[in-house]
């Protein structure tokens, strides 16, 4: 852990210090600190309502009403829990939305090919399945070549089989593009499968100790190491697996 900190100190992709955010009287984040190294995949676990999404929205620049310091790269992209595609834009135009560059459509086509949706460029969002729509959302994020990729429970609404396929796809894409990633999730297995490091947002509005994940990839869910890690994280979340 100390070595990770040391590397980060050189040039972090994200540096959050003393982040506070309250809604009315309720303070959700109370002086939260978080560093993410370039190319590092961090999973943030927490119970629902713990403020995970609040942190992510602050990093995404969607919430200006925070106190403290949140330093992020200019190029960042979000994948929300729902695909949030503009229903009146064809898939390719949804991917290239907001891009000013010349040839952004070709880039969008390439990104769609990367997520396995070649040939769907001119389809309307309403015709896509949940998994396909979320892959479009992934392509829309990646086409921006972000230095920071923010994932807000992106696979929470997908069925179990699709979710496994999406995990594999996300691992592939991250290996290729190497963005720093913050994945917000409440799925402990998902966090272990994907992340380099897992941290838990506690009820006090701060992050708990880091848990580096040192399992060989691809990570098998049925190994004892995986189980032990899962048990530890669940305990930190205040859940016992065996009732």
């Amino acid at each position, binding site marked *: 852990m100390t070595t990770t900190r040391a590397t980060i100190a050189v040039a972090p992709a994200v540096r959050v210090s003393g982040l506070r955010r309250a809604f009315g009287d309720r303070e959700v984040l109370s002086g939260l600190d978080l560093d993410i190294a370039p190319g590092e995949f961090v999973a943030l676990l927490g119970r629902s309502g713990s403020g995970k999404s609040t942190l992510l929205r602050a990093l*995404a*620049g*969607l919430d200006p009403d925070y106190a403290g310091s949140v330093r992020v790269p200019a190029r960042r*992209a*979000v994948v*929300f829990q*729902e695909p*949030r*595609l*503009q*229903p*009146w*834009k064809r898939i390719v135009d949804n991917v290239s*939305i*907001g*891009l*000013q560059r010349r040839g952004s459509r070709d880039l969008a086509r390439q990104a769609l090919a990367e997520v396995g949706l070649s040939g769907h460029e001119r*389809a*309307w*969002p*309403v*015709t896509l399945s949940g998994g396909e729509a979320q892959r479009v959302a992934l392509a*829309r994020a990646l086409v*921006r070549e972000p230095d920071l990729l923010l994932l807000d429970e992106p696979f929470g609404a997908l069925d179990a089989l699709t979710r496994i396929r999406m995990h594999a796809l996300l691992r592939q894409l991250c290996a290729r593009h190497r963005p720093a990633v913050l994945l917000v999730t409440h799925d402990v297995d998902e966090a272990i499968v994907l992340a380099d490091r897992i941290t838990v947002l506690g009820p006090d509005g701060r992050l708990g100790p880091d848990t580096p994940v040192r399992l060989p990839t691809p990570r098998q869910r049925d190994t004892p190491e995986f189980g032990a890690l899962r048990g530890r994280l669940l305990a930190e979340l205040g859940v016992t697996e065996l009732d």
Partner: protein
Amino acid sequence: MSTTDIPVALAAQPARTGTDTGTTAETGTAQQNVQHSDRRWLVEARTFGTRSRRLVPLPRPVRRMAGPVLLIAVWQLLGSLGLVSAAVLAPPSAVLSAGWDLARDGELGANLLASLTRAVDGLAIGVTAGLVLAVLAGLFRLGDDLLDSTMQILRALPVLGLVPLVIIWFGVGEVPKVALVVFGTIFPVYINTYAAIRGVDNRLVESGRAFGLGRAGLIRHVVLPGAIPGFLVGLRYALTASWLVLVIAEQLNATTGIGYLMNEAQTWNRTDIIVLGLLIYGVLGLLSDALVRFLERRLLVWRRGFGGA
């Protein structure tokens, strides 16, 4: 033998698999019971679908036309049999021949053109103004504060109650008629478009913002496309309103138009021409509706998700 053929009965009567005739009779009853309950509780899945099987092999459009055709036939019969005099309600045949006469001497065409021109002028102004005001009030807080309450108050005024005032203001020419159409069409467009702009899904706006859209980009790529369905609803109301307003406006101090034609006919007790005028208004209403549906098909392809070049 019978017991092996009927395993259900066998299971039901395991202790009595003897060879005496009594057992055979028993199992026979059991089988009947099984069949009986089978018939009672289980139905062939397909039977639900066959309910809608057509008894009359007529295409749907033909069946849908049956009602109107029957209505016209009864109407004609009432006239032909002398049950209803032409002074009260002219029969369809008289309406048709009146239409033919008016069409031949060019009177119908000229008056129809006059009415259409008023409707189109009024709609063009009213719809544009309603749309512009809705966009201003929907997108900008200042516009909202300045416009919305005013519009909500004005829309409560009955259009037709304005007729005397409009005549005093604009006299008896084309202007008061067009002005009434403008007044009748501006509010449905405004109300529906404003509500649609305000109702655009905030998550989509946020997503657009997260992917680098500025204010202008959000308006162009998210808010306005999202408001189109609401605008089209408003347009549909506006088209209906335009004909409604014209009916009245053209019966006041007009010298051309379908309403004028009907008003003249009233003086001479020509119910055939009055009914003809009503029919024309009806057809114009139908055509307006078809126009909006055409626009919907073109503008809202993304809703159905297929077609579109």
